[in-house]
């Protein structure tokens, strides 16, 4: 069953505006500080050097599953009628660690740590498109699941 309702983010929240604008136009756009560090999750100052945000950079919409869970009982009413669903943490292929949380839009059976995933944007309304993850088609399934 397709998830129809979501707790909605505030797309006007100051540190997140560019990110949500990017999602709405199908782009993954992340903040970069004066010294060139990705600042993820978005903060007013870089966690590493405390410099401000200098720009927003568009990055590749793919990565590998770093960890995952299957939620069987959600505390969120929007998910209360959902069947068990998976949430993943995906590590983007960058020198610096950038990991994103997202709903898994694929079979739970296909999930394993290291599995290749790519982003899809779930259009919820005119302003909000949620970045979710699905398995990359060319995935090599491991013989033994982790």
């Amino acid at each position: 069953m397709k998830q129809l309702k979501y707790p909605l983010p505030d797309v006007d929240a100051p540190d997140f505006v560019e990110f949500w604008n990017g999602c709405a136009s199908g782009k993954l756009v992340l903040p970069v500080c004066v010294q060139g560090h990705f600042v993820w999750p978005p903060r007013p100052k870089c966690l590493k050097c405390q410099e401000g945000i200098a720009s927003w950079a568009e990055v590749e919409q793919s990565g590998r599953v770093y960890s995952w869970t299957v939620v069987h009982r959600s505390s969120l009413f929007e998910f209360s009628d959902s069947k068990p669903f998976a949430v993943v943490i995906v590590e983007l292929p960058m020198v610096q660690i950038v990991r994103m949380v997202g709903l898994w839009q694929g079979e739970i059976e296909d999930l394993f740590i290291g599995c290749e995933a790519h982003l899809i944007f779930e259009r919820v309304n005119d302003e909000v498109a949620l970045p979710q993850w699905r398995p990359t088609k060319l995935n090599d399934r491991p013989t033994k699941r982790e």
Partner: protein
Amino acid sequence: LVPKFSKLVRESINDEVITVIGAGETEYSRRSGRSIQDLAIDASLAAITDAEVAPQCVDGVIPLGGELFTEDLIAGLGLSRRVVDATPAPGGASAVAALSLACGMVDSGSANCILIVLSRNASSRGRIGSRVRKLPGQQFRDQLERPHGWSTPAEWYSMICRRHMAEYGTTKRQLAEVALSARRHAQLNPRAMQYGRTLSWEQYDQSPFIADPYQLYDCCLETDGAAAVLVVSHEFARNTGRLPVDVLSVEVARPESADDLTNREDWHEIGLSVAAPAAFERAGVTPTDVDAAMIYDCFTFEVIHQLEEAGFCGRGEGGAFAESGALDIGGRLPVNTHGGLLSEGHLGGLNHVIEGVRQLRGEAAGRQLSNANLIAVTGWGDWGDGAFAILARR
């Protein structure tokens, strides 16, 4: 000069050893039917009576749980209107962090006799789903997590657990051993909510999934009740008749990226990885000197995780350590001899401090350890805040 100066301040503070002279609690239940103020007053009086002092001796208060205030205790116990008070950051590290605040109060001379009390109806009202909305970093939860259905501690920490299982081969059998050991201990503790209810591997294995790999019995209880300890200066303790339990050291630290657990350079490093070595150094003891540990057991894996990061075993060895029977009374490092949050009740870990005190005083009755001179207590909060105290029988 400024960073150097603040470092010096941090290292000179808390030279004073503080001493626990009283401990008490209410019944731990699923539905108290009483207000948190009423529960707090009862637990406080039990701790004050246990210490053999008068309520008027209390000159410092640290209320815990999120909804309890110093005003409730002034009104209910007839405390001085001049009591000083402080509140640690919310979350599961707060009970042990309160010992650190008490050290600061004593060291600065602002208080000599400090009441730490936690009270809440966390089972019948205000369960975890609402409590987590008062934790730091809500902008990340609202923007990047809840829209994806990721919203509770079980769901957050199951991610850490899964990664540990993949990297180190930690198994569900090993997680189960944490739950089963806690449940065995609870059978020796009439106060435990799970007293009289044994747990088998089969029951554990067949219990419903909450957030895979966590099943029902990987998760702690929700509890109505209150717990309290009375902490005093060394000098104050000299004038009381009770067997004193010294806090040799207490340290608090946060993990890197303290409000977001997903983006850490070292996935497994937490606040405790910093706090525990600092506390051992300050106390002048090592992990092998510790006779038992009260580990903040919000979930089974967090016990294994903290045993590793506190230095009781190497990283990746915690699962095998648990499976070896080390955590049981009589084992290499008895853990949560009261049953812990998993089987005694969830009093924010203040019940762990109380169990440490009772063991060191020799008051743990049917679960008394034969050798209890040094006991470690941990707190785990939010996305890995850590607090670590070393308690000693004088």
